[in-house]
C-alpha cells in the first residue's frame, strides 16, 4: 500500500473512534449534570461515559501508534500535524491555568471586606511556602532536567540511558504527587473555606491533575523507548511528552509565587499559624473573666 503511494501524506482509514468519543463525551456531560442534580441513574451514566472516553482514548492512540510505528505513515510532513496540534493544545492549557492563577491573585490583591480585608482571609491557616511548597517546585524542575537528559540520550542513540532517564522523570513525578497529597491532607482549609480555599484547591488541583497526565504520558514514552519504538530521527510522541512535561514544571512556578509565597501571611514564622484576630481573642478573654 505504501509502495503505491506517490505522496508523503497520510490518508487515514475510516475509524469508529471519533463517534465513540463523542458519544462518551455526551454521556459524561449529561450524566455529570444529572449526578450533580441528584437524578436517578446520573452516577451510572457518568461512569459509563467516562469508561467510554477512556476506552476511546486507549484504542485511538493504539491505532495512531500502529500507523506510525508499524505502518510508517508518519512522514516528515505528517509529523507537522501533531506538532502544530500539540503546540496549540499546550497554549490553550497555559491560558486555562493562567485563568485559575489569576483568579487567586485577583482575590488576593484587593481582598474584599467580606473576608476581613486581608489575604489570606481571616481564619485561614496556610502552610509555610519554604517547606513542602518549595520542595514541590524543585521536584518538577529536577524532573524536567531528567526528561531533557532522556531527550539528548535518544538523540545520541543511547537507548538504555534514555529508559533510565525516563524512569527518573517518572519517579520524581510520583514523589511530587505524593507530597502534594500530603500537603492537601495537612492544609487546614478545604475547597469550601472562603475564596482562598476555592482558588487554592482549584488552581493547585488542576496543576496536580496535569502532573498526573504528564506522568502517564512519560510512562507510555518510557515503555515505547524500552520497546524500541523511538528512534534518533523519529520520536514525535516523546517530544510531545517532553514539551508537556516542561509546560507542567514551568507552570508550577506560577502557583508557587502567586498562591503559596504571596499568600504566606507570616513570612517570619516557621510553620503556619492561625490568626484568630485581636477582636475575637479579646472577646474570648472577656467571656472567660
Amino acid at each position, binding site marked *: 500500500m505504501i509502495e503505491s503511494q506517490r505522496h508523503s501524506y497520510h490518508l487515514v482509514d475510516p475509524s469508529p473512534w471519533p463517534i465513540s468519543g463523542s458519544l462518551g463525551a455526551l454521556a459524561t456531560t449529561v450524566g455529570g449534570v444529572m449526578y450533580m442534580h441528584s437524578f436517578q441513574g*446520573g452516577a451510572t451514566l457518568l461512569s459509563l461515559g467516562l469508561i467510554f472516553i477512556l476506552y476511546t482514548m486507549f484504542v485511538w492512540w493504539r491505532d495512531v501508534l500502529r500507523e506510525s510505528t508499524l505502518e510508517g505513515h508518519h512522514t516528515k510532513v505528517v509529523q507537522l500535524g501533531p506538532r502544530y496540534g500539540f503546540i496549540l493544545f499546550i497554549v490553550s492549557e497555559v491560558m486555562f491555568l493562567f485563568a485559575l492563577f489569576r483568579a487567586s491573585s485577583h482575590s488576593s490583591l484587593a481582598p474584599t471586606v467580606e473576608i476581613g480585608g486581608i489575604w489570606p482571609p481571616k481564619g485561614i491557616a496556610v502552610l*509555610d511556602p519554604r517547606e513542602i511548597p518549595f520542595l514541590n517546585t524543585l521536584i518538577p524542575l529536577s524532573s524536567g532536567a531528567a526528561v531533557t537528559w532522556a531527550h539528548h540520550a535518544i538523540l545520541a542513540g543511547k537507548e538504555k540511558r534514555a529508559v533510565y532517564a525516563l524512569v527518573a522523570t517518572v519517579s520524581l513525578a510520583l514523589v511530587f504527587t505524593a507530597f502534594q497529597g500530603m500537603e492537601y*491532607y495537612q492544609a487546614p482549609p478545604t475547597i469550601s473555606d472562603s*475564596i482562598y480555599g476555592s482558588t487554592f484547591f482549584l488552581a493547585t488541583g488542576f496543576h496536580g491533575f496535569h502532573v498526573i497526565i504528564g506522568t502517564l504520558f512519560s510512562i507510555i514514552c518510557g515503555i515505547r523507548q524500552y520497546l524500541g519504538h523511538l528512534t*534518533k530521527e523519529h520520536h514525535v510522541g516523546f517530544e510531545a511528552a517532553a514539551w508537556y512535561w516542561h509546560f507542567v514544571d514551568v507552570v508550577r512556578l506560577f502557583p508557587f509565587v502567586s498562591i503559596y509565597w504571596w499568600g504566606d501571611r507570616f513570612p517570619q514564622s516557621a510553620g503556619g499559624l492561625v490568626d484568630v484576630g485581636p477582636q475575637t481573642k479579646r472577646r474570648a478573654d472577656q467571656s472567660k473573666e
Partner: protein
Amino acid sequence: MASAIVRSTLRTALRGGARVNPASSRSFSAGASVEEEAREAAKWEKITYVGIVACSVLAFVNLSKGHPHFEEPPAYPYMHIRNKEFPWGPDGLFEVKEHH
C-alpha cells in the same frame, strides 16, 4: 509584512530548518551531532542527579520537622460554605478530618 515573516520563520522552524538534509534532520533541533548530543545527555544527567540530591535533602529536612498543628478557626460565615447538599451526602469527600 511582519506577520508574513513570523509565519515563514515558524514554518521553517517547524520543518527543522530549510536547508538541512531532510533524511537526517530532526524538526526543532539545531542539527547537533551525535557526539554533541551525548555530551548534552551527560550534562543533563549530572543536573538531574544534583536535583535529586537537593530534593532528597529538602525532603528529609521537611519530613523530620513533623506535622504543623493548627487551631480551629472561628466560624466565620465564609468558612465551610454549604449552599446545597452534595450528590453523595452532606459532607465533602475529603472532609473526614473535620469531625474529630
